């Protein structure tokens, strides 16, 4: 799924910042998703917050490397894993 699409899916969630983490709760029209809220750690939180309209992978990688002082290769790998996981959760 493209980053742009993930950005649009963000509107289906309510978030709350707690310390360095972010709680993410899905809006839901049925009881099945009652337990499906989750927490993003500091890195995932930054990625989530930067999933904006017009965002691209290059900009995300730059943001992560600037924020956490890690190399581009590690940042790219971590972002890819996070986005795949997020896509799977958002599509439920």
């Amino acid at each position, binding site marked *: 799924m493209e980053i742009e699409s993930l950005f649009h899916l963000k509107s289906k969630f*309510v978030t*709350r910042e*707690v310390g360095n*983490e972010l709680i993410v709760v899905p809006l839901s029209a049925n009881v099945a998703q009652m*337990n499906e809220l989750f927490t993003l750690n500091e890195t995932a939180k930054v990625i989530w917050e930067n999933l904006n309209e017009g965002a691209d992978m290059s900009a995300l990688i730059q943001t992560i490397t600037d924020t956490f002082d890690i190399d581009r290769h590690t940042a790219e790998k971590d972002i890819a894993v996070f986005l795949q996981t997020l896509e799977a959760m958002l599509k439920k």
Partner: protein
Amino acid sequence: MNSICLAIGGFSIRLSADRKIQLEDGYLPFVENQNVENPDFTIRCVEHLPSIGFDASDLLFQAENEFQKFYSIYRNGNQLAFVIYNQQTNNEVQQVAFLDENFKHWTIHCEVTDGLFLPLRYPMGPIVMHYITLKTNAVMMHASCAYDGKKARLFTGFSGAGKSTMSMLWSKAGRQIINDDRLIVRKQDGVFFVYNTPMYYKDIPKKAPLSSIFLISHSPENRIKKLSGAMSITRVMAFSIQNNFDRRFIEGRLDLFTELCSQVGVYELGFVPDESVVNFVLDNE
């Protein structure tokens, strides 16, 4: 006009109708002996189901499993409309209810069945209780709770995690069980209290100050881990009753659970289903 006043979770609820209102046995201990002049919530009970339909485009929430529907919630102007289905006869409408935008005033329509006028027949009653909590500092939880006279300990988890087992073990150890399945947690004067709610059996109303929350699971040995921050909030909130079709509900819940989890201890508890867990908790919380 016939009326009955109930006290549930410390809230006063007045039901009124043109005919005699019947309640399932579990509600009877929660009936107030005197009429409350300004109840917190009112329920007007009307005989006969209304002959109106709801547009599928107004459907906000559906509670169902693969076998049957439980209830549906529709937008109805400024109100919410609830269609409640009979649990025994597949998809037959049992009640139609309307809730005003302030969540203070209900109108519940139902038929007289077998000579009984039961506007709060399950699952309507628990739905009413849940919506009572939504705009107040309260929440309904799937949980059991044991009270030792000073501290109430709440045990929650997935179905089969051991809530009822835990109640049995703490009861054997001499603690009062507030309830083994469904509770209201409510903030009053800065303190969180636990209340039982009317069940399918009779039990007296109970209230206790909440001290700690345990997220339980079966384990080969007793183990405990304190949780804090975002993890504690999400883990506890996951076991509350939720109809999350409106982001304001979620935001209210996040406010409540953030405060709750900062005031009471929250623990992950793996337990052996025998009496050893009682002393283990007392020694390690």
